[in-house]
């Protein structure tokens, strides 16, 4: 989107996914049946949603490690709310989940903006705090399927035009993000802040505020996913989605979002998430130990980062030469 170069990056990732699917199909044709692919997509939907939020944050040179904890806390709160008030309509629940998530994102954002604490420290801290709060409010107890109201559980599974609501939400978030990133001043500001924060200041962009906005966005999406997750799996407890933040960051990195900020696209983040989702779903099917999944995801991250590093390095050298001659 930004450069033909990144288009090719997405093409490469797209081709890798296709090759993966063909390889799987050669032995297990059932895997690529439309029905099954739809299932894989539905399974990957939470990762897609969170990866997009994370992408906004990473674009501004930050990182949000608290997304999974945010998801779990929001999920727990709405599940508890549901046990107390089973009649609460789903739209209310959605609004509450998004608002709670956004609030937690705001806490991250304000700490980064106003106190200028490094984002990795802030979100590492809030990640632990949010998990701790779940324990406090639930006393470590689980909320199980029979305690949740049927409508609460049914919403993400409801099928519209052949796809579950969960999948549709992911699709809408992707579309919304494409518009946000490429068609709004805020989206542009994400790139400017990450690409060159000093220059962004001189252009009249408030760097801290923009970063804060990215955190709120990421938090809101984590809150939304919190409800969907708890409802889909029909269970809420302290450790749900434990370690999921790393998968989210991995999806972004594989999708070519530069950890140094300023570079990346919605398509990249989406493909990165899908790549991980397919690997995760395919391995059990073709009878490969799930431990291989970790190895494959890990290798994919390193390859993607190596790709980034080399492309950035050549760029750096050219700039240095100019700087040198400027002196």
């Amino acid at each position, binding site marked *: 989107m*930004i*450069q033909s170069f990144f288009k090719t990056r997405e093409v490469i990732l797209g081709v890798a996914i296709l090759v993966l699917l063909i390889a799987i199909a050669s032995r297990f044709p059932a895997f690529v049946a439309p029905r099954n692919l739809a299932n894989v997509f539905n399974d990957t939907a939470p990762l897609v949603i969170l990866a997009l939020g994370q992408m906004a944050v990473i674009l501004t040179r930050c990182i949000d490690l608290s997304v999974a904890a945010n998801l779990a806390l929001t999920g727990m709160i709405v599940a508890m709310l549901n046990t107390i008030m089973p009649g609460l309509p789903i739209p209310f629940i959605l609004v509450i989940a998004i608002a709670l998530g956004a609030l937690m994102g705001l806490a991250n954002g304000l700490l980064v903006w106003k106190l200028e604490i490094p984002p990795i420290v802030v979100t590492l801290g809030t990640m632990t705090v949010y998990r701790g709060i779940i324990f406090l409010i639930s006393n470590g107890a689980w909320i199980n399927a029979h305690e949740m109201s049927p409508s609460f559980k049914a919403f993400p599974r409801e099928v519209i035009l052949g796809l579950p609501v969960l999948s549709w939400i992911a699709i809408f978030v992707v579309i919304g993000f494409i*518009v946000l990133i*490429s*068609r*709004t*001043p805020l*989206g*542009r500001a994400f*790139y*400017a802040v*990450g*690409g*060159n924060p*000093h*220059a*962004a*200041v*001189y*252009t*009249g*962009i*408030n760097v801290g505020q923009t970063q804060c906005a990215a955190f709120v966005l990421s938090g809101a999406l984590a809150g939304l996913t919190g409800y969907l997750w708890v409802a889909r799996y029909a269970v809420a407890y302290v450790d749900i989605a434990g370690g999921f933040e790393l998968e989210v960051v991995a999806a972004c990195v594989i999708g070519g979002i530069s950890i140094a900020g*300023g*570079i990346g696209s919605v398509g990249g983040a989406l493909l990165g998430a899908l790549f991980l989702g397919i690997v995760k779903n395919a391995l059990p099917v073709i009878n490969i130990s799930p431990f291989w999944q970790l190895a494959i995801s890990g290798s994919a991250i390193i390859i993607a980062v190596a790709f980034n590093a080399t492309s950035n390095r050549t*760029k750096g050298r*050219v*700039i240095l*030469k*100019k*700087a*040198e*001659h*400027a*002196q």
Partner: protein
Amino acid sequence: MLANTQGIENVHPHAAQDAKPVLSLNGISKSFPGVKALSEVALDLFPGQVTALVGENGAGKSTIVKVLTGIYQPDEGQISINGKPLSFPTAQDAGEAGVTAIHQETVLFDDLSVAENIFIGHAPKTRFGLIDRKEMVGKAQELLDRIGAQIDPGVLLKDLGIANKHLVAIARALSIDAQIVIMDEPTASLSHKEIEETYELVERLKAEGKAILFISHKFDEIFRIADRYTVFRDGQMVGAGKITEVSEPELVKMMVGRSVDQVYPRREADPGEEVLEVVGYCHPTEFEDIGFTLRKGEILGFYGLVGAGRSEVMQALFGVTKPSKGAIRIDDQIAVIRTPNEAISHGIVYVPEDRGKQGAIKGLPIFQNVSLPSLKTTSKNGFLRLAEEFKLARDYTQRLDLRAAALDQDIGELSGGNQQKVVIAKWLATQPRVIILDEPTKGIDIGSKAAVHEFMAELAAEGLAVIMVSSEIPEILGMSDRVIVMREGRIAAEFERDDLTPEQLVRTAAGLSEVTS
């Protein structure tokens, strides 16, 4: 600190002709794409003597320091130490040959102790190959005592002031037994007392027989501590000799007396009504009592030495930093500028000096770089309109004669001069009333320079008020209608262009009295 005044007294007799240079450079040339930084330069340094290197900004002083310390390789020419030809392929080779540099901004390690800083890379070892901490601290103490520095070798470097950091750097130079010490504007950011201490230190180094290359813009200190001088101008050595045989005006003349080889656009100054008035602008640490006016169609030059506070004033005008006192009037209305956004909406824009850091946003294509501050006008109902952005970018980059393959090309792929054009186009697209250009032609090739000058003249002719911060004397004289000279955070003088000579500029910026001859 009282010891050894003896050495000081015999300095001049001691600088006799029998001394052989410990280091000589001959026919050194160095080119960068589009710029010849050094052209057949010669420089001799003598043991126990201070050689002052003087020259305007961009005369090649920094380049020669980098050649001497092994950071740059000369294209041609010979470096010899004690008559033996040598080359310095790396900084380490230069260090081993006994050359050390003490920079304006010291390059030491903030989170290591003073002793560790002095001995990093050559620390005394125990017989097990570990660092012998006790020995190291003891030796560090000895070295510090030798230069009369009252510094505890155990404290962390970051807890020291700049002057003390210089002392540590010098102790380090002594620890590797450097014979040649380069001091690059060592007093530029020091207080009066610290400056005196630095002079004492220079005398001590002299007494130890070190050859010192002292780079400075301050004439009083050159005449006070130097034994010899070398003048650079436009990458050439234009004069050298004993300091006792030269006068201040002669030095100034050598520095600036160039044939103007560049043509500046001719313009008839016809300033209109006043646009901007700055009254009593102060900043707690950077500048004080800045006041000036600016009229439509005028180019106001700001001249001064590096670190005189020119850019800092401009950044405050643009809302990047906050002044502690003072007011701005725009069109006779008091204006409050607290953020760059407010400055932009008042029609003031700032093209920063450091394009890489503050101007171009790499990763964004050219047209998005141009449209970034104008998104309010190019977007509609909160949505961007790329076609409008493209149009805006095309209009303004065409005016600036930008050479780029396509407007959706990454700005990082452009040359320095073309990046500068994009940054200027970005600001023109906001249709400003006042444009501040900070070193607009620094580091760009001659061709692009002429284009930028041409364009500045056009802007002024169209009624824009232009502030140009520049350290290049010809540019200041060639372009400005009026010139403000800043020194140490204050306005030192204001001149009309017609009654201004290069000598006056240099003298005012350096704080010298008027020439009486």
